[in-house]
């Protein structure tokens, strides 16, 4: 795993004097799936905005590959780090999905043929080819979100920063979009997921960075986080309900997810009757895995 982004002793003070980040250091590897957590005001959104150069450090620096964010505009960094905003309506501009996804590649000066390739590639990877000629504003929120993701993918970034992508989605949409992120990760990208939904952290993230009051107070795996009550308290975080349950019942292994809890001998027979499958890496996925997810091998952009 190469290092994709290095955050070195990052400090950020806003114009009104608020010190949002105090000496935060973090190295994000090219294959990381990192959850970024913390209460409101902890600095997690501030930190996230440094990762693609939207904010410039007041102290320290952020390196994307060997590019210093202070020397590049965020648009120049978009082919390396894609940042997905919470509300897709803040981005949608074009009358068709196709044109919408083409905006980034065109703005970056790619040839018309390459632009067409990138659009097809992005729509294909997400399985939304059939939305190509639709007007983005008439789509559902979940569909708009996919269009926004496609717009980012068209620049082939090797890191994706996802800002609270699941808060307004129902359970089916949420599952679908988290599976997409899993696929995008498996295709070789680093994922940084900003969320306060700890069940998603337990289910998908491999690593968790917790901020409180502008400082990094934890950097480790979700299991480590859920067994550190002081950190949870400090960052006003709660364990997922099933983890809490497992702890109360004194389960022999920690229960991070519902799947974990079910993966005990007594449950094995019943689990297969209902038709759940365990994914390649032991993480559980829902039975109705859509055949449209190609899991295309998009070559990671060389940094």
């Amino acid at each position, binding site marked *: 795993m190469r290092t994709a982004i290095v955050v070195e002793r990052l400090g950020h003070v806003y114009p009104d004097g608020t010190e949002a980040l105090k000496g935060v250091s973090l190295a994000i590897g090219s294959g990381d799936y990192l959850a970024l957590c913390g209460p*409101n005001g902890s600095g997690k959104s501030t930190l996230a905005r440094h990762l693609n150069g939207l904010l410039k450090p007041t102290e320290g620096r952020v390196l994307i590959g060997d590019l210093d964010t202070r020397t590049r505009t965020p648009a120049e960094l978009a082919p390396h780090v894609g940042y997905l905003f919470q509300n897709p309506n803040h981005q949608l501009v074009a009358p068709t999905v196709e044109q919408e996804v083409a905006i980034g590649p065109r703005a970056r000066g790619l040839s018309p043929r390459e632009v067409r390739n990138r659009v097809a590639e992005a729509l294909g990877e997400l399985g939304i080819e059939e939305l190509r000629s639709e007007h983005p504003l008439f789509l559902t929120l979940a569909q708009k979100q996919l269009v926004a993701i496609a717009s980012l993918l068209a620049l082939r970034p090797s890191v994706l920063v996802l800002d609270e992508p699941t808060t307004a989605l129902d359970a089916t949409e949420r599952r679908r979009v988290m599976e997409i992120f899993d696929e995008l990760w498996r295709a070789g990208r680093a994922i940084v997921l900003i969320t306060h939904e700890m069940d998603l952290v337990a289910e998908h993230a491999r690593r968790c960075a917790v901020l409180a009051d502008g400082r990094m107070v934890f950097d480790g795996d979700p299991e480590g986080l859920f067994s550190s009550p002081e950190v949870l308290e400090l960052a006003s975080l709660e364990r997922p*309900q099933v983890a809490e349950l497992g702890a109360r019942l004194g*389960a022999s292994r920690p229960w991070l997810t519902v799947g974990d809890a079910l993966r*005990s001998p007594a449950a094995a027979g019943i689990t297969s009757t209902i038709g759940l499958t365990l994914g390649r890496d032991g993480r559980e996925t829902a039975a109705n895995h859509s055949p449209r997810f190609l899991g295309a091998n998009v070559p990671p952009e060389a940094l």
Partner: protein
Amino acid sequence: MSQHSPSPMAVGSDVVVHLQGVAFRYPDSDRDALHDVDLTIRRGEIVGIVGASGAGKSTLALVISGQIPAFVEGHLRGDVMVLGRSTRGRKASELAESVGIVYQDPEAQLYGLTVEEELAVGLENRNVPAAEIEERIRWALDVVGLRAALLTRSPYDLSGGEKQRVVIASVLALRPAVLVLDEPTSALDPGGKSTLYDLLGRLAHGGVTVIVVEHDLERLVLQANRLIWLEDGTIRAIGSPAEVLGESYLDAATPLRLPQVTELARRLGGPRPYPLDIAAAIRYAPIVRLASR
């Protein structure tokens, strides 16, 4: 409107909301957004409306609060009775005194330069005397748990949770007997969600009937007296949370975001009623057995 006691408007009947044979179709649509909806809600209940995106939850909230047909075009059939009167043909400002609605985005519902203005405008426009306005503002702030010091602040400067509560206070200042909320917790962090649900519990305890559209069920199931599960525009199940969530065994991938303990019980194929929280889960035999391996 001259009430001096801080309790909400009390009207004789125990049934506050009654829908009979209700159906609604948006203009230019080829199918009904709601059909065959019959329901009765009583004073002081907390009722949750749950279901997949597009199932008609927001539409139902708009119908109950009278926003359909007061603002929203379309073809509404059936009877919608709130506090014994039909919502048809009534003006929005008059409806607001019976049933208030709080939408998802606080930013779209705040119009005042100060929190005080937010709360006072509705009362000023009803010619409520200044002394009474003052009292009602104080009451509304108190109910939602905001400090009086916030009165002179701009609503824009407040946190998401505080904004949401200012909107609720503004709606409550008109003393509706029914409060409808459409996905009030989407933009809130876990602390904000808990605060909001505590507030809804207090309101119901004080006699206000609360109807909440929600897709994250973890806290709702603990507060709601009943849930209405909507699917494709009609009621799939209605009953206590335990009863309704018990129905969810039918689909492997249900669109409801169940509390994890409920999901666990469902996947174990254990007996219904499924536990809705940790306290119930630790007494639920199949889960206890799981832990002892």
